[in-house]
């Protein structure tokens, strides 16, 4: 066929494309086609029949009868000549004489074919794929009969139909396979995502899930790894399959295919490791690498790493696999970022929740409850932390959704009103307040959350507040006891302080009679609504109570209904409003002589601190009472002594008066009477301080008041305690000066007066200086000669110093007396 070029149609791309689409070349024989060629042989009465498909470089026989070759080159093809005429059957009666075939090797040599008839295989699209041909080894000048021609054409159409059917089945199977594959990939992907989701922030778990997913989606993969970028290296972080032993391996970015993928940020199909330009030979050997697919794991602005699936065989992967690997790297990226975001959120959430739970402070979120008028009347618990339960002594699980008035019946209105205020105004409220029904103090802060909700963070401060209250109560008690001067006042003060401090309902003090037979309770303090039990009570009327008090130990009962000493009949206790009690004994010479009593109408647990406080109060009261008793006794003795002294002086006065009855001049007698009187006055002043000292001003006023109205004297100087000797000396001195002033000096005149001024002068020895200055009186002169006893007393000065400077002036006497301050003042030891 050298002289007969093949039709152009042989090389027609669309025709070849159509042929390709049937995917028929090089496939095994099939019954359907074989039957057709058999039939063609019979119908056309020939030995040979072929289904011949003309490809671009050869013709290939899908079915053949009595023909030795399964394919031939196009030089040997007769069928190719049939391509040009899809509408007719090509009949060549003698191949030896036809110009197109006389040089054909199949004609000139084995198998020496001589006759050919071929019906074109025309696709529905009009492309001619080849022919169904019949061949004979003898010349057949008549060709085919018309019936044979039509039969051949019909059979040719049947071949095409068979091809179509075959292609449709293949296409369906392919679609199914594709679907199956996609399903597999999706499943693997879903599973990977699920594992990522439950990885709980564990990076390795996330990465392992991705690798495992990719490997199950790409069956060709024998090993998988995620290599994470670390500087200029990639580290094998998650490894599976054949790569399982390579965990931790580090490969340089610069000499690996994974590095190439990471740098280019594009998926990479390494069809054959043996010829790949990027991977080092060593690595190929180490990893047993035949082929691989790589995809970058992108995160944020950069590459986090690379996912690689590998096989020991070359060309194990397809471009489709590349896409699949891409899917998983996306999942990895999403998983990693989502995981890190979620981990962050969860960490924060866990952090706050953990904090909330671990707080030693109580935390409450509450929501206000309003009445029809919008007024807040209550609030409900929205959330509480475990500390809340500890601090309130209520199981926190039971309160959410319930209201505070329901959870803590009888709670103070302030616990609602203040939080309502916080919600209304948004102003943070700090509080330190007691819940009376549970006897606990809380300190905290309430803040607004929204229009109806608020948060409260608080601590229980009962111990602190009560300790402070007890401390301050003891201070107050100390002050009161120091100031009060009767035991009755003191016990009443102590009772009230104790009652209020302990939040008790009754407190008092009682004298114990006999061997703790009875107690005589003095006027007691009681809370509002509680009756006094002042009076005598026999211990045995209330239970078996005497033991501890007899031993000098406190009688402590937390609950009269359960305490073994009173439970048999708590009635008498209940009748006088006692649910719990303490009797703190006061001992004298080994006997219990009194007790400080505290009652509570409700049972309560008396704490060690409270008992210590009561002990302290009882001790202080005991000391205070002892002091007052001693003072009272001292006062009685003083009064008695003063009384006897005065009586004695009075008798002396009377004896002297009667002795001097014959003396016609009465003046000296009266002077004597008055000096005794003056001395007595000095003793009166001294008695006020048990004769240990006297106030200087009191001494002056006492003696001067005996002589004249005090408003005629101007006293000017610092008041001070002076010694008994100084008091007596000052009294006699002022008595004589005033007597003279009344007789001769300024006080003898209606408008005259005396100024008495004193001061201390610092120097080598501090000195008291006393000035007596008369004004408004007549001119006076010094008495004649040595004068009488009165003049002597004046010249003796203060405490016998004889330091007296006397000046008889125009309006009366002017005198200055000086004495060492140490002789005047009381010596403090």
């Amino acid at each position: 066929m050298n002289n007969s070029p093949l039709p152009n149609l042989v090389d027609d791309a669309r025709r070849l494309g159509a042929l390709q689409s049937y995917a028929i070349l090089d496939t095994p024989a099939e019954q359907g086609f074989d039957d057709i060629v058999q039939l063609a042989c019979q119908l056309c009465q020939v030995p040979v029949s072929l289904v011949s498909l003309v490809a671009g470089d050869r013709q290939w026989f899908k079915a053949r009868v009595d023909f030795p070759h399964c394919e031939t080159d196009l030089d040997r093809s007769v069928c190719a000549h049939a391509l040009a005429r899809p509408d007719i059957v090509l009949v060549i009666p003698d191949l030896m004489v036809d110009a197109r075939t006389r040089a054909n090797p199949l004609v000139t040599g084995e198998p020496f074919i001589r006759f050919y008839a071929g019906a074109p295989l025309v696709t529905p699209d009009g492309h001619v794929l080849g022919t169904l041909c019949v061949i004979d080894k003898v010349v057949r000048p008549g060709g085919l009969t018309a019936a044979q021609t039509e039969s051949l054409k019909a059979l040719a159409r049947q071949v095409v139909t068979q091809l179509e059917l075959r292609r449709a089945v293949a296409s369906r199977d392919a679609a199914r396979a594709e679907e199956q594959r996609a399903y597999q990939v999706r499943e693997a992907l879903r599973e990977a995502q699920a594992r990522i989701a439950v990885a709980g922030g564990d990076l390795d778990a996330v990465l392992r899930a991705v690798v495992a997913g990719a490997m199950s989606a790409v069956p060709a993969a024998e090993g998988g790894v995620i290599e994470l970028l670390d500087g200029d290296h990639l580290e094998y972080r998650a490894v599976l399959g054949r790569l399982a032993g390579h965990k931790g391996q580090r490969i340089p970015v610069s000499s690996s295919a994974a590095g190439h993928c990471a740098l280019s940020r594009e998926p990479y199909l390494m069809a054959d490791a043996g010829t790949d330009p990027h991977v080092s030979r060593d690595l190929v050997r180490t990893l047993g690498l035949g082929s691989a697919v790589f995809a970058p794991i992108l995160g944020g602005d950069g590459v986090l790493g690379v996912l690689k699936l590998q096989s020991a065989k070359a060309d194990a992967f397809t471009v489709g696999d590349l896409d699949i690997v891409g899917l998983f790297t996306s999942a990895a990226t999403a998983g990693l970022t989502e995981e890190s975001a979620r981990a962050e959120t969860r960490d924060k959430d866990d952090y706050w929740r953990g904090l909330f739970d671990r707080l030693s402070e109580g935390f409450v979120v509450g929501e206000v409850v309003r009445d029809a008028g919008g007024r807040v009347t209550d609030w409900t618990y929205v959330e509480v932390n475990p500390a809340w339960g500890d601090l309130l002594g209520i199981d926190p699980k039971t309160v959410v959704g319930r209201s505070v008035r329901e959870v803590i019946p009888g709670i103070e209105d302030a616990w609602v009103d203040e939080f309502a205020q916080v919600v209304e105004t948004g102003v943070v409220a700090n509080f330190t307040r007691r819940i009376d029904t549970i006897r606990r103090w809380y300190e905290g802060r309430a803040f607004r959350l929204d229009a109806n909700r608020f948060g409260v963070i608080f601590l229980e401060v009962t111990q602190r507040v009560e300790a402070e209250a007890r401390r301050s109560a003891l201070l107050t008690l100390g002050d009161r006891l120091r100031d009060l001067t009767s035991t009755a006042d003191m016990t009443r003060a102590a009772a009230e302080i104790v009652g209020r401090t302990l939040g008790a309902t009754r407190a008092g003090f009682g004298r114990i009679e006999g061997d703790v037979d009875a107690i005589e309770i003095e006027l007691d303090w009681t809370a509002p609504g509680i009756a006094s039990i002042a009076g005598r009570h026999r211990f045995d009327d209330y239970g078996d109570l005497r033991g501890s008090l007899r031993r000098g130990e406190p009688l402590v009962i937390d609950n009269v209904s359960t305490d073994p000493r009173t439970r048999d009949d708590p009635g008498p206790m209940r009748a006088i409003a006692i649910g719990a009690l303490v009797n703190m004994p006061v001992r004298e010479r080994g006997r219990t002589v009194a007790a400080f009593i505290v009652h509570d109408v409700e049972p309560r647990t008396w704490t060690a601190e409270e008992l210590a406080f009561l002990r302290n109060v009882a001790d202080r009261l005991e000391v205070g009472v002892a002091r007052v008793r001693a003072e009272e006794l001292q006062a009685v003795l003083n009064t008695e002594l003063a009384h006897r002294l005065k009586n004695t002086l009075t008798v002396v006065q009377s004896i002297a008066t009667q002795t001097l009855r014959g003396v016609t001049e009465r003046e000296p007698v009266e002077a004597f009477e008055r000096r005794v009187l003056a001395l007595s006055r000095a003793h009166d002043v001294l008695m006020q301080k048990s004769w240990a000292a006297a106030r200087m001003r009191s001494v002056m006023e006492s003696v001067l008041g005996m002589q004249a109205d005090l408003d005629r004297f101007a006293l000017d100087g610092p008041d001070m305690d002076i010694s008994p000797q100084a008091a007596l000396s000052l009294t006699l001195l002022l008595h004589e000066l005033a007597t003279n002033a009344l007789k001769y000096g300024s006080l003898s005149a209606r408008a005259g007066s005396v100024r008495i001024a004193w001061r201390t002068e610092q120097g080598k020895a501090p000195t008291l200086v006393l000035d007596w200055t008369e004004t408004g009186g007549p001119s006076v002169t010094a008495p004649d000669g040595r004068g009488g006893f009165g003049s002597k007393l004046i010249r003796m000065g203060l405490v016998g110093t004889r330091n007296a400077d006397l000046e008889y002036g125009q309006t009366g006497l002017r005198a200055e007396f000086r004495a060492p301050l140490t002789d005047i003042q009381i010596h403090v030891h």
Partner: protein
Amino acid sequence: MTETHRPEHALVLVVEDDPILMLSLVDFVENAGCEAIEADSVADAIRILETRPDIRTVFTDLDMRGSTAGMELALSIRDRWPPIELLMVSSKPWDASQIPARGIVLGKPFDRRRIVAAIQKFAA
């Protein structure tokens, strides 16, 4: 008790169980220009008062045997003979609220001037 009635002198009943002090008290009464009638006990004083309606003033010591005797006398006088004036002397501090109305208490030792002035005031 044996004194004859001298209407020109106001009568002062002096009650004192100490004879030495009685001398001084009588001395004060006479200094004041009055006539003293002596009683050495509360019982004696009551008996005299029952028989002598002309006594205008009673001058008594509050410090007599049976510590409260003097004050009891003063109170009973105020009760039974309201017009009689009361002058009392005492060595003990006194509670002003316990003193019978219009009564005057003066301390010991004696302040002659004040005692005499008080007797004269009552006698006037």
